[in-house]
């Protein structure tokens, strides 16, 4: 077996496979299907300072090779997470990472600080790219100034590994990544969902309750891959790649394009055991290519 371990801004992963926020619950929902400790990192649901009910139903539309969602960061708030969820997940022996969102810099920083007090949470992923909330979320992630401001505020309040999740709904993602790096991020993850829409022609109405939603699944993979490749060349901090990864082959594409680790999202809905299969498949690829470590293929694209 090859050495699958990678380091993401100080965070040691036993393998480069993580789960994307909002697609794997708190991990517990998938415990019947996979050994959670075989996953490099589990990024749990987006958490905000205050509870959020999210957007009204309907929140999902199936599309060609993908799906749209407009969940809108439904969660019970950071206090509930600390009191009720954390005790259930703190002894899972892998990196349990919390995705943190907010609607202003102060909320982000306060939420991150609360998570920072939890001993067994070694990192957060800062969501500055949710397309489904009116205030905050993506509003921070679409300008270099906004992204920089929120990352600075959180960096001040949070000392452990800080991964910043970037929005693809921008003109120059490399520029945003650089500003996030300058503001103190330890790593970036990309891409969040692409803003999209679905129409019901019989009712002549949008399918989703708020009209637009975030597109995920294999449909977005080429866009994600291109952005990961661009960002990996633009920053020195590690890049975590995600967007439509369905199998080990997809994951290896992201690693070659410069990602140090990957996140699996929508694929968890099709195969709840896909994460461990991807980790195994990466190992098989490495064996086949005579690599002793996964680190040999990160950014190893020949151009």
């Amino acid at each position, binding site marked *: 077996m090859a050495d699958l371990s990678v380091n993401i801004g100080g965070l040691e992963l036993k393998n480069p496979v993580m789960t994307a926020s*909002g*697609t*794997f*619950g708190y991990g517990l*929902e*998938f415990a*019947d*299907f996979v050994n959670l400790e075989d996953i490099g990192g589990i990024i749990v*649901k987006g958490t905000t300072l205050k509870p959020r*009910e*999210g957007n*009204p*139903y*309907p*929140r*999902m*539309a*199936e*599309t*060609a*090779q*993908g*799906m749209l*969602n407009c*969940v809108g960061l*439904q969660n019970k708030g950071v206090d509930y997470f600390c009191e009720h969820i954390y005790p259930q997940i703190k002894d899972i022996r892998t990196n349990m990472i919390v995705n943190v969102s907010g609607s202003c810099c102060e909320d982000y920083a306060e939420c991150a600080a609360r998570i920072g007090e939890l001993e067994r949470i070694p990192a957060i992923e800062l969501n500055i790219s949710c397309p489904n909330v009116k205030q905050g979320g993506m509003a921070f992630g679409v300008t270099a100034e906004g992204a920089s401001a929120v990352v600075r505020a959180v960096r001040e309040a949070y000392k452990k590994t800080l991964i910043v999740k970037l929005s693809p709904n921008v003109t120059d993602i490399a520029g945003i990544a650089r500003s996030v790096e300058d503001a103190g991020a330890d790593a970036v993850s990309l891409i969040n969902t692409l803003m999209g829409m679905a129409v019901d022609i019989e009712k002549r109405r949008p399918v989703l309750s708020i009209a637009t939603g975030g597109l995920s*699944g*294999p449909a977005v993979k080429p866009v994600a891959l291109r952005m990961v490749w661009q960002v990996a060349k633009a920053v020195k901090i590690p890049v975590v790649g995600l967007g439509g990864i369905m199998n080990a082959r997809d994951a290896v594409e992201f690693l070659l394009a410069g990602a140090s680790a990957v996140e699996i999202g*929508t694929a*968890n*809905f*099709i*195969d*709840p*055991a896909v994460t461990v299969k991807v980790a195994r498949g990466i190992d098989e690829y490495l064996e086949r290519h005579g690599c002793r470590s996964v680190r040999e293929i990160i950014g190893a694209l020949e151009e």
Partner: protein
Amino acid sequence: MKKYILDLTVTANEHLREGYALLRLTDSRPLPPMLPGQFAELKVDGSETTFLRRPISINYVDEEKNEVWFLIHEVGDGTRKLGALGAGDKLNVVLPLGNGFTLPASPDEKVLLVGGGVGTAPLLYLGKRMAEAGNRLAFLLGGRSAGDLMQLELFRTLGDVYITTEDGSEGEKGFVTQHSVLRDGPRFDRIATCGPKPMMMAVARYAKAERIVCEVSLENMMACGLGACLCCVENTTDGHVCVCKEGPVFNTDRLLWQI
């Protein structure tokens, strides 16, 4: 309950009528325990337009033959692909998902099971489990016309069957809530219903007026089926909850339906 990902084998696929396929599946090992009202996520292979699994309720479990049945209403490419499976084909399923109907605490409880269209599917397995427990059952099944009613002979082995059709081609003419058994029949202690939402709302309205415990099975659009993606939420007295995980069966007291 522990959930499984299984590659089941189709033993038979019978079209009960045009567009409705009854899939019977088995496994080389004993199937896991399943409760009436629970569902499975069925993987669709070879469809250009269908990406997600299809959530389908458990129609029946035949323990002797180690079979689970799914009644598939072919409405899109995904369900048509499922309906085209034949004996010997494999089907990847995730099951059992969600929570089932409440089984009566006592065999003395008189239960009314109300179904419309393909919504009658989970009531067959529910009826089986309730009949085994010794409960006296009445099925009230509705359709647009006689051809819409399926598996009637099986329902009749489990309890009394009352029928309404909108065109009067079988049973009483009208909607299920207009059937005379609701007026002239015994007082029921519990109602379980599954079918089109307007029908379930009408049944819930009747149950509320008569102060009868009523459970409904919802089928909001789902992605994961596991309570992870938060797409299939229903607004309840506890806020937005996942139909796939906290349902699909809900006591109507918990719903915010205007009835």
